[in-house]
């Protein structure tokens, strides 16, 4: 089997007495969508933050492309190729959709210490950014400030920005949240193709999307992975049904 792109080893994080991450290990393999599901407060977002670098784990390691990235900050991890979207959209609100994506293109091209050339006249920034907006269906809204985009459009913009980084792995935290059935279906189709560009660690509550997309599913409950396996294995797992799918034995 191919080397995993991302692997997490025995990660632990407590907030006071609360064990938000309690010995989590998981892999993200090339070409796969690995869904991470679990009830509210299970620690999914906290885990994503620890992978992306925003939260420092108490112990355990995060290995990305064969390198232990535990000591790197958020920006350095993003430059290594971790493209993420936030559960609650996090954009530069005054900048247009296009400029939000251009920021990622600029970062990917290297130094931001360039002081004189106007970005809006720099086609090496505007063109790739526009292409990402086209791919995510936002081209018509390119010049609208992020703050004035609809909720669904902001979710799409998050994806466009992550794409523009040309990442080696995606960390998507509930990309479907609040998208409506129409939007969810479109995004499901889009993510389905995306896995071939880079594998996706997908946190998602929308079970239709998860069952349609996931190659593997890990179930997180109270900071612990209680099951990992294919869609069928996880669906059939008694503990999962009890803990998460809400069935009585």
């Amino acid at each position, binding site marked *: 089997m191919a080397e995993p792109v991302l692997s997490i080893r025995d990660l632990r994080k407590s907030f006071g007495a609360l064990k938000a991450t309690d010995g989590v290990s998981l892999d993200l393999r090339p070409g796969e969508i690995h869904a991470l599901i679990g009830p509210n407060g299970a620690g999914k977002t906290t885990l994503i933050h620890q992978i992306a670098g925003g939260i420092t784990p108490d112990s355990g390691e995060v290995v990305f492309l064969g390198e232990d990235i535990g000591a790197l900050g958020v920006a350095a991890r993003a430059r290594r190729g971790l493209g993420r979207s936030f559960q609650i959209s996090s*954009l530069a609100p005054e900048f247009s959709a296009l*400029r939000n994506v251009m920021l990622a293109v600029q970062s990917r091209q290297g130094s931001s210490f360039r002081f004189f050339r106007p970005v809006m006249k720099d086609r090496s920034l505007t063109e790739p950014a526009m292409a990402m907006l086209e791919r995510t269906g936002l081209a018509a809204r390119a010049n609208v400030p992020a703050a004035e985009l609809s909720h669904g459009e902001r979710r799409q913009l998050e994806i466009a920005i992550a794409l523009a980084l040309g990442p080696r792995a995606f960390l998507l935290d509930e990309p479907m949240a609040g998208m409506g059935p129409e939007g969810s279906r479109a995004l499901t189709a889009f993510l389905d193709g995306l896995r071939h560009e880079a594998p996706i660690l997908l946190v998602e509550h929308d079970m239709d999307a998860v069952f349609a997309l996931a190659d593997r599913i890990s179930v997180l409950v109270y900071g612990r992975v209680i099951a990992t396996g294919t869609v069928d294995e996880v669906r059939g797992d008694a503990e999962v049904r009890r803990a998460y799918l809400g069935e009585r034995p």
Partner: protein
Amino acid sequence: MSRERAINLLLAGLLLSVPLAALALGELFYITLATRMAILALAAVGLNFALGLGGLVSFGHAAFFGIGGYVAGIFSSHAFNQTPLFSWPFEFFGSDQMPAIWLAAMLISALIALPIGAISLRTAGVYFIMITLAFAQMIYYFAISWPAYGGEDGLSIVVRNGFPGVNTAVPLIFFLVCYVLLLAALALFALVRDSRFGAALQAGRQNETRLAAVGIAPFRIRLAAFTISAAITGLAGALLADLNRFVSPSMLSWQMSGELIVLIILGGTGRLFGPVAGAMLFVLFEFVLGGLTERWQFFLGLILLGVVLFARGGLIGVLAGKARHG
């Protein structure tokens, strides 16, 4: 032409016309007033890099303003008295030439801003404000207790420093020197604002999580902005010392830091001509209200309150509407 650009041109023209009109009417005092406007505007353009673009509320920029002033004072006093400022590794007698003084004022301000920024930028919000204030106060008290350069009494510049090819003692000429520097700083501000660096700096103000998530570490961008910002404010300080032919610790005081912030808020935070509009208003208030009542600062406070409550974008915001970013 956008409305904002038209307003900017108008303000630039207005500032230029004040000393010309003053000259025509023989009221030379107004040239000094306009020069003061240009210099304060330049200092605030400097602060606008950090505050306007970067969202870094430095409450310590008087430090750089004063350092620039002291560089002008110290260089010219050594040049005037022919005493060496230092004798190792070579003998240096200061300078009474503005280009040398400006360069030194900018360099020294930048060099001091670098460690101050490196420490202050580890914090954010109120802590950042307080730490920049604390550093500026340290420098203020240092200047007060340093008798070699006048301590509390300050330091006089006997003859205004020169500029090759022109007579800076002529008020209009000195105004034009300051005015050209102001325009140059504004051009630099516009370039940097629209550049990649400016994009990262402004994105960091809007949402630093987003900036880091695309792989740009906010700290280094901000440190560079803080340093550039200090250099320009330092340059303005050197000019103010030459205008007054005098520099004292009051240039380093926290009131001065506050005035620079007030200028920017009055004019329009982050707007290209915000500092110009702000400095013109401020000096005008100081002059008109100051002539009517000793408590002019009280009325300035009222006006500021009005701006903060009802006109967030300052004068430029009121006249030109909200800022648009491409």
